[in-house]
Every structure is written in C-alpha cells, then in structure tokens.
C-alpha cells in the first residue's frame, strides 16, 4: 500500500498570511492599491500593522469555526462574521522599504521586472491602442504604478468598508497614497461561485503538503479519500479526489520543493531563492481581468449555428460548445465526465477525472461516467481547464510528474462596476511567477501546440486574432478560428506577500534605522 509521506514539513501558519493559504473565501474582497511617498513613514506605519494582519492559522481556524457552526445550524450562520486583512508589496515597494539589493536576491525575474513590462511576454497585446495593453491599465502599468496592495475580505460589507476607510486613513497619514481600489463581490456574477461567462469556478486547486501541529488535522490539506483499499494507490499523490498534493516550496518561501521528476520526493534544500526574510512569504499575481460575456456568447452562438449547417447531425448547440471551450459545464461538471449534457455533478466528483487514463476507482455514490480521453475527443485538448492543467498527461515538458510544480494557488473573485465593467480579480500565489503563472500563460495558454500538439490556444485566456480551437466532432477534429478576445487585462502587478514576521521584525528594524 502506498502511504502519504509522514515527513511533510511543519508549516509556520502563524507567520504565513492567510490569503496565501487557506485563502480568505469571503463574499467581499477589496484590493486597495497604494504608492509610497514617504518611505520612513511608510515603514513605521506598515510595521505596526503586523498585529492586524490575518495569519494562515487565524483564517484556517475561522473557516473551521464557520463550518462547525454551519453544521450545527444546518444553514449558513448569520452572525459568525470575520474580517481578514493582508498586505502585499511590489518589487518597487519592497525596494523602497527594504532596499533594492535585498529585492535583487529574489531569483524570480518576473517579480523583479514587474507585470507591465512582462505584459506582452504573457500574451497581452503589443499595440498600445489595443484593449488590454498595459498603457491603458487602470492599476499598475506606466500610468498607475503601485508599491503595494491592502487586501480586506469579509462577508459583512459595511464592516469591510468601515475597516478599509480606517486603514486608508492610516496609510495616508503613514506616507502612502491610495492609487486605486477594486471591489470583488461574488454576488456580481450570474450565480454565486460562478464567473461572468456563467460557469462554476474555483473547483480545482492543488493541495499544499505540510503539517499543522493543531487539531483537528495532522495535515494542512485534509486527506479525505475514501477509506476503501481501492483508493490506496492514490493516497501518495492526492489529498482528496482529484486534489493533487504539491510540496509547499512551490508556493511559500522557506520550504522545499519536489524532485523535478518525482512529485513524491521532497527536496528540503530545494527552496525558492530570495532574501532570508522571504521565509513564509509568497509571490502574488494580481490581474484585473475584464470579461466580455456578450462577445463570448455571440461567438458561441454564431459558431454553433455555422456548425449546425456543416455538421447537422452532430453539431454542438451553443451551451455544449461553450462547455467544450471551458472544459466544464455551467454546473462545474467536467465535459470529460459528461460530454453531451450538464448532469450537475456535485462534491468531490467534480474534480475526480483524468485524461491519459480512466480515473479509477469509482467514488462511492458517483455514477457519472469515467473514460480515458488522451486525444481530447471528450474534453478538447484546447479546453481552458485542460490547457492550464493537463493533469496526468505527458506534456511538452516531458513526463506528467513535471506538471505539479507549475501549480498556482488561485484566490480570485468576480467584480462588476456600475459602468458595466465586469470580470475577475485574478489573484494567484506561488514561489516563482516566472515558472508558474507566466509559464502557464506563455507556454501553454498562448501557444497552439502545447501542452499537447494540436491543442490550439486557450480559447478563454489567449487574446487577439488568429487563434484556433480544435473541436472534436464526428470523431475528428475541426479547426475553428477565434478572432475575438473574451478576456483582457485592465490592470495588474506582481507582488510579494511577506510573512507577518517581516512586518514585525524586518520592517520595524528598518523603521528604527
């Protein structure tokens, strides 16, 4: 029997900021971007904030408390409210506060250069006049550079706004200027938990390995595979059905990463490289992604009607075509498990599938079909969820064991403004933006022949004309041209989410100097 490694590292959850892990998961999340005008005052102000920052331990316990209450009440509790606060700093902000020499010791090129300058490298348009170019960004970019971001999250919006005002006032008095605010709200999407195209989001995440010395879990990511022996072969690699275990060093500084060719082998010395104070910190990508649901659905409808003429017997209708582009139906049901209709899979089964081989054994009570789909006849090779997570299939990187290190911890939330601007405030944590978020964008999302040949570009995230999508139809692949952009960036920056100790010690020390 395969067993999970017992030597998973102890995680310092009191030091790690809580949006990194386990994530805030609140209905409202505001991002308040600031610049530093007075470095000395900012050091003093920010260093004093360490006690108000929400640690991973605090957020984790809050989630447990909320779950316990919900279980007892049998419904969402009314009064159990929490407010979480985190801060992340850009390379420029860290340089101002701590010194550029320290920042230069980060190995990650992308973080040090910043998102605006990397923007065309990850597929944003090169022409300044095109929507999505960094020159037109609302936050970040040449017109709106930022040094940091304050993140507040709560289900209680008035409380959140009140706390935000207080902190903004303190920031203003502390040598910082508020540059921009984005307000995430899960209620702005067509349905809670869904994004603006109408699809359930936030389903598949990596499970960070590591132990937590507090009850109730030995492991940070609870191991919830069924006890049946048939699941034993999965235990070394998965925390829950489809929930792949990834070593903490791929997300958090100060911990080891996997052997490049074997995800089960922990290499403690293989830590992400950065300054010593980076321990328990994580690199954060922020992308203000504007979505165009009208353009997306018009494309889907037009294409479906053309297909109805060219392939009258087997053409997908608009809903099925949209699901094939995403890789999931609106309910989150993977098309790999139900290619013809949305059968409303729920729970663990939503993430329990693979591509190279049929996923086995069946989950108790899970009657939805399972089938190997190596050639993308069920879930197209170019479907969004397959482009960014090829699961068990070998890729242009080589063996599939090299895929987990490309994982990211997604913490995004939908937004909509009164002016009709809507989309996703994309947030992702990792220990190397270059090797994780940017790799996914440049190497898999934007290229037509990766991670598998003939995949086409990611139909959702890739931008510009000349994209292709290979639709499985009548047992063959039909090439469909995509000339419209469905998602474009309207802002963004790369940040470092330091440990709480960084504010308490490094920044306080620097403030005294």
């Amino acid at each position, binding site marked *: 029997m395969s067993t999970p490694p017992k030597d998973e590292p102890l995680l310092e959850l009191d030091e790690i900021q809580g949006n990194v892990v386990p994530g805030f998961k609140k209905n409202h999340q505001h991002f308040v971007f600031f610049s530093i005008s007075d470095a000395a005052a900012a050091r003093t102000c920010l260093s004093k904030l360490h006690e108000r920052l929400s640690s991973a331990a605090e957020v984790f316990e809050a989630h447990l408390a909320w779950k316990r209450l919900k279980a007892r009440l049998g419904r969402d509790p009314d009064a159990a409210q929490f407010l979480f606060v985190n801060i992340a700093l850009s390379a420029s902000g860290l340089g101002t506060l701590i010194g550029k020499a320290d920042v230069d010791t980060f190995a990650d090129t992308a973080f040090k250069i910043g998102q605006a300058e990397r*923007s065309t490298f990850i597929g944003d348009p090169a022409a300044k006049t095109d929507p999505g170019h960094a020159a037109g960004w609302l936050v970040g970019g040449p017109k709106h550079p930022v040094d940091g971001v304050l993140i507040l999250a709560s289900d209680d919006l008035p409380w959140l706004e009140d706390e935000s005002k207080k902190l903004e006032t303190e920031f203003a008095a502390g040598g910082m200027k508020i540059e921009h605010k984005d307000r995430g709200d899960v209620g702005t999407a067509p349905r809670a938990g869904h994004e603006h195209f109408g699809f359930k989001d936030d389903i598949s995440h990596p499970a960070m390995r590591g132990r937590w010395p507090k009850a109730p879990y030995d492991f940070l990511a609870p191991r919830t595979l069924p006890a049946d022996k048939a699941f034993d072969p999965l235990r070394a690699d998965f925390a829950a059905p489809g929930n792949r275990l990834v070593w903490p060093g791929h997300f958090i500084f100060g911990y080891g990463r996997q052997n490049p060719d074997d995800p089960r082998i922990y290499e403690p010395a293989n830590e992400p490289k950065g300054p010593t104070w980076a321990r328990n910190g994580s690199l954060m990508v922020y992308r203000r992604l504007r979505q165009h649901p009208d353009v997306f659905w018009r494309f889907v409808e037009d294409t479906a009607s053309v297909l109805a003429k060219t*392939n009258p017997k087997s053409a997908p209708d608009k809903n099925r075509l949209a699901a094939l582009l995403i890789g999931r139906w609106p309910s989150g049901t993977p098309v790999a498990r139900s290619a013809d209709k949305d059968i409303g899979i729920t729970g663990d089964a939503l993430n329990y599938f693979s591509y190279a081989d049929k996923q086995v054994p069946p989950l108790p009570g899970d009657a939805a079909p399972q089938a190997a789909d190596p050639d993308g006849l069920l879930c197209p090779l170019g479907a969004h969820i397959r482009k960014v997570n090829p699961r068990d299939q070998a890729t242009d990187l080589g063996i599939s064991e090299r895929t987990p290190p490309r994982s990211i911890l997604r913490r995004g939330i939908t937004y909509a403004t009164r002016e009709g601007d809507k989309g996703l405030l994309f947030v992702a944590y990792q220990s190397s933006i270059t090797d994780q978020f940017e790799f996914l964008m440049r190497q898999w999302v934007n290229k037509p022949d990766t991670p598998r040949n003939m995949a086409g570009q990611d139909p959702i995230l890739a931008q510009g004309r000349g994209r292709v999508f290979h639709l499985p139809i009548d047992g063959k692949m039909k090439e469909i041209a995509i000339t419209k952009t469905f998602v474009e960036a309207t802002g963004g920056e790369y940040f470092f989410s330091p440990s709480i100790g960084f504010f308490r010690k490094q920044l306080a020390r620097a403030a005294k100097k």
Partner: protein
Amino acid sequence: MDRNLDIAERVLQSATGGRRESEVSFLQGLLSDIGAGASAAAAMSPARLYRTILGGGPASEDMRNALEIVARPSERPDGALRAGDWMLRVVPGTGDTGHVTVLVSDDLQAPSAFVADGIDAESAQDGQYGVVVEAGAFPHNRSRPFARRWLDGRGRVPPHSLVLRPRRRQTAPTLDPPASHPHTLDPLPLDPLPLDPPAPEPPDADPPGIGLLDGGLLDGGLPDGGLPEDGSLDGSRDQDTAEDMGTFTPPAWLKVERRSRRVKARATEGEAVEYDTGETQGWVSDDGFVAPPWLKIERRSRRLPEGTEFAPEDEAFTFDPTGAQTDFGPKLRKAWHELLKAAFKKNIDEATNEIATRLRISTAAAAKHVRFFSPASRSPAVMLSAKNVPWRAFPTSRGAASPATYKHFDELHADPTTGAMLRDQDEYCEWKVFRDGAGKIVRVVFTSEPPEYYRFLHNPGVASLTKFARGLLVKLYQERCGSKAVTLADLEITAPSGDKVYDPGNRWNRDHCVHLQQPNNTLGAQINIAALASIVMKDASGALITSVSKLIPCTRFGEASRQSDPFIGDNVNKLARDNHFVTLQNPVGLYMVSLDTSGWTTPDGTDAQKFWKVIKGKVDKSPGKSMIVRAEYAVPAGKGYTVSDIKIGGAPIEFGSQIAEQLEMRLGALAGPKDKDPEGRATTPPPPAPC
C-alpha cells in the same frame, strides 16, 4: 480574367443534374466556350478528357488545340498557375469518375490561410490551394468560396490530376449551356466520389478527392510482397503481341518480357499498377503512360494514397537527407538512404530481440510487438497521419531555468567518459554564443544537424564516393565556420585500430557549433526511442503501462530528465496502444520550428523576429512543418546595438540559453490507421509485454 470566371460561373449555374451529370455538363459548357470541337466536347466527361489529353491520338490533338497542358500528374508547372486554369482529377479504378475545377485566383496559399479567412479548404495537407469554381454535389463559386489543392508541398500537381489552360480566352458574351451541351453520354456509374467534403477535415482525415481507400480495393490483393513471386501482373493474356511490341516503349516502371507468345508485364520493385475494369484500353498511369490495347493491367496492390510521405510519386521510397538539404548528389543520397535504412532495421531488430529475449519467444513472434516500421522495408499502402511532438530547445535536465542553468548550458563541459569538452545541451538542439570584446553577445548559432550527417560524409560506406564526400565535408565545415583553414585532418581522430575516423568533438565543431555534439543527440537515438516506445507493456500486476515515466525504465529508451525523449515516447506508445503502426517523417530529423519573439523588445523598436535567420533547412508557412537544422540570432552590425541589448520580457539577453528557451523543436511521427498494418491488413493489438 474576372470575365472568364464570370462565364465559368454562368456555365456552372446552368450545369444541372446530380453530382455526375453536373460535372459533365459543367465541363461541356467550358469546352464549348473555348471552342473545343463540338462533337468531341459533347462526349467528354472529366475523366475522359483527362485520358484523351494524356492518351494521344486525334482526339487528344483536338483537345490540345484548345487546351494547353500546364502540368501533368506529379509534374511541376513551369510557371505560376493562373486564374482561369482548369484542373482535371480522376479516380483510378472507378471507371469514368472525374472532376473539373476552375481556378479563381492566381495567388495560391496554404490551407491555413484560407481557414483564417473563413474559407473552407478541401484538406489541411501541405500544398498550395486556390479558390475554385466547380460543379458537383456541392458546387462552389466566388460567393461560395472553397479552396482546392492545386499543388502539393513540393510544388507539383497531385497524382491523378492534370492542369490545363484554355488557349484562347473565353469571350462569348452569353452562353446557353443546356442547349449546347446535350447529355449524350453513356449511362455512368454514380459511385459516390468524395471530391467535395462539406467542411475541411484535419490532417489525419482521408484526403478528399482521392477516395482510394474505401470500398476494399485491397481485398483479394496480394500477400506481403505485393506482387507474386515472378512479379507478373498478368501472364495470362494469350495473344500475339509481336507487332505491338515492335513499337511499344514501356515506361520505366513497367518491365515487359516476352515468353513464347505471351507477354508478361510486371512492375519494377515498389511499383504497383491499378486496373480499370472494363476499360483496359486507354488506361493512363500517373505519368501519362497509356496502356496499349494488348496489355491487360490488373491491380495487385493498392496504390498509395495522396498526402502521405510515401505518396505514389515516392513509391521508390528513399530516406531524404535530414532537413531536406541539397548538399548531396544522387549517389550520396542513395548512400544516405542505405544508412537510414540500416539504422531503422538495426533499431527495429533490437526492439524485436528485446521482446524475444524477455518473453522467450521467436523473433518472428516478437516482431509483432514492435509497432514501429521502416518505410524502406515495408512500403506503406495506407494513409499515414502526421503527429508532431513539440518541446523546447532549452534543457530541463538541470532543473528550472536560472542564471546558473543558463550559464551551464552556454558553456562546454568535460564529458565524464572521455574528458572531452563538449556542449551539454541535451534537447537535440545545441548552440554557441559569440561575444564581442566587451562580452556582449553579437551572435548565437543554433544547430540540430545530427552527427550522423557529418560522419556519413567522412565515410559514406561507398568507396568510390569517399573522396568526394570528404571534400564536401570539409567544404561544409569551411562554410559553417567561415574559415578556409579547416582541413580534413582537423576533423579526424585516430581510432584504436589506427584508422582515421570522424571526430564529432573536433575543435571546429566545438567552436562553431557545426552539428550536434552532445553524445545523446543523435538520429540513432531518435529512431531507437521510437522503436522501443512502440512496444506496449504491462506492469507486474498485469495492468497496461500508460505512464511514460514508468515506461522509460521498463523499455529503457531515452532520458526521463529530458523534455523530448519522454514526450516522443509518450506519443509513440500511445499510438501503439491504440493499435496504430508508427514511423518517422521523411526526411528523418529533429527540427527547430520557430523562435517565439513575442514580448521581446529591441532598442530601436525593430521587430526582434527580424534577427532570426534560418541558415539551413526548410521553412514552411505552417511552422509545424518546418525542418530547420541551422539558424542564428544576430543583430546586423549597422544597427549600433547587440543581442545583449535586446530584452525578453524586460530581461536583457545575457545568455544564449535565454534564446534557446524560446525556441521550439519538433519531431514528426507518422501513424497508420487504427487496426491496420502498414500494408493495410487488419491487425489486432499485440498482448502487452511484461515489464
């Protein structure tokens, strides 16, 4: 020319009837318009016109007075095709089934260009396509555009096709096709002809316009060899042929023997002939040979389909030089073919022996487990679909990219076995960085040329060619290195036997990156991986092994730490598991495809792609088909800046490795149809071999 096309479209409007009738009616309208003999025109169908023109005789002369032959089947046109040109297609073995189509525009393009414009193309095969006016079950005109393949990837007219040009322009202001084109033809069979699919199909689809594979044309065909032992195609026709033979000059592929009063005709090796039931007389081969009336021709094996590497024009299959290079003359090409042929055989034999030993079975039984084949020994009679395997040139064998790994791969390292200083770049692409006095990069040269190519030139295996080949070897080195100082002695080393042998680690290669030098970067490795990976394996529990990371230690091919080897193995084994036979694209090689310079910035705003120069190999409009074996990235001297002043995603280029990171490589595999062996016979999957 638009006027001519207007007329063609009006003819098309009046072409009525089903698929077949409309084809005939359309052709007759076109013939009438150009003034072709009315009586002859009235009897013409596309297939008959094809045979008439190629067959000679008075009828042919009439037609040739009205129509100029632009290119015969498999011929390259002397000049560009023009709007208004006609193409005739026939389907051998189907009697009178044919098709005529008129070219709308003279700017032929790749199919992808049409698809990008929203115009369906008849296939995605390599070649030059043009929008057409045509009849048939799905008529097309300029308002219903559809692109057909006029020339293949080598600029030749496809087999069974003929391009014609009206000698005088259509000038008739009006036409009345129904009246002037009576349907006086004999009843024609209405076999479905897949000339016109409703939508473009992916490359692995049967190409439309061929339709040779349907209907069991091979049924009753010959066993393995394709021809009977005596090679005869027909030895039974009992007639006196002396007079006929007196004037008959057989084409090169047809051997005619006199045996008593019988004539035997047989194809030369690798050739196959199709018959046309009931129409022996006037049978025309691809190259225009018209069968004389005394010759009965029977098909004994299937003619190869268009679109494979081994299409009819290539039936005498030869392995071409890597990268479709033109360094070799015919003799060296033949010798190279023999080298590759032997390499395929060696690796297939090794894989076979591995299984024979492991399973303790005969080599004949073991051979059934190896789903990799050599097109030189098993001429495929099935459609082969191309499968690209992509990866990046920058190695992953030393972990994630970093300044340290960039530096490592830019530098030479001592080979652990020989101590020789070699490049450690192990993804079948190697590079050399050239810097100026200030340490700035002025040029980075990339190669994916295999060492076998140069070793072959040193010893081509044919004594009479050795001197010439070695001269060519030195010449190529001098060109690559930009120095006349290179001598043969520089490229040789003395073997323990005392013989002078080629030294891939020679200083010129080391300093100028002439060809792949890292010991595992060889064509032999590529063939070996494909051969071994084509064996389906099972683990100790009896479960099929599908994970390539488990397969590599089991079958012992390639390096798991590379990107390329596992991905090649994964793709090949997947095809084998699905019961496909696999081989490698000809010319066999590991190719650079394209350099992704999106997100690069230059000091003066010049497009960074302009500094990427392909030196050797083939560049295709569709990058996935490119076969680049030598290229360099360099800024012209007059620019006033260097490669080091260019930034990738804002980061200055400090190492050649950074460029290699953006360089895509590929291997081209070819897969036969599921459940068929290369000869087209039904085959069942072999039981998985134990690991």
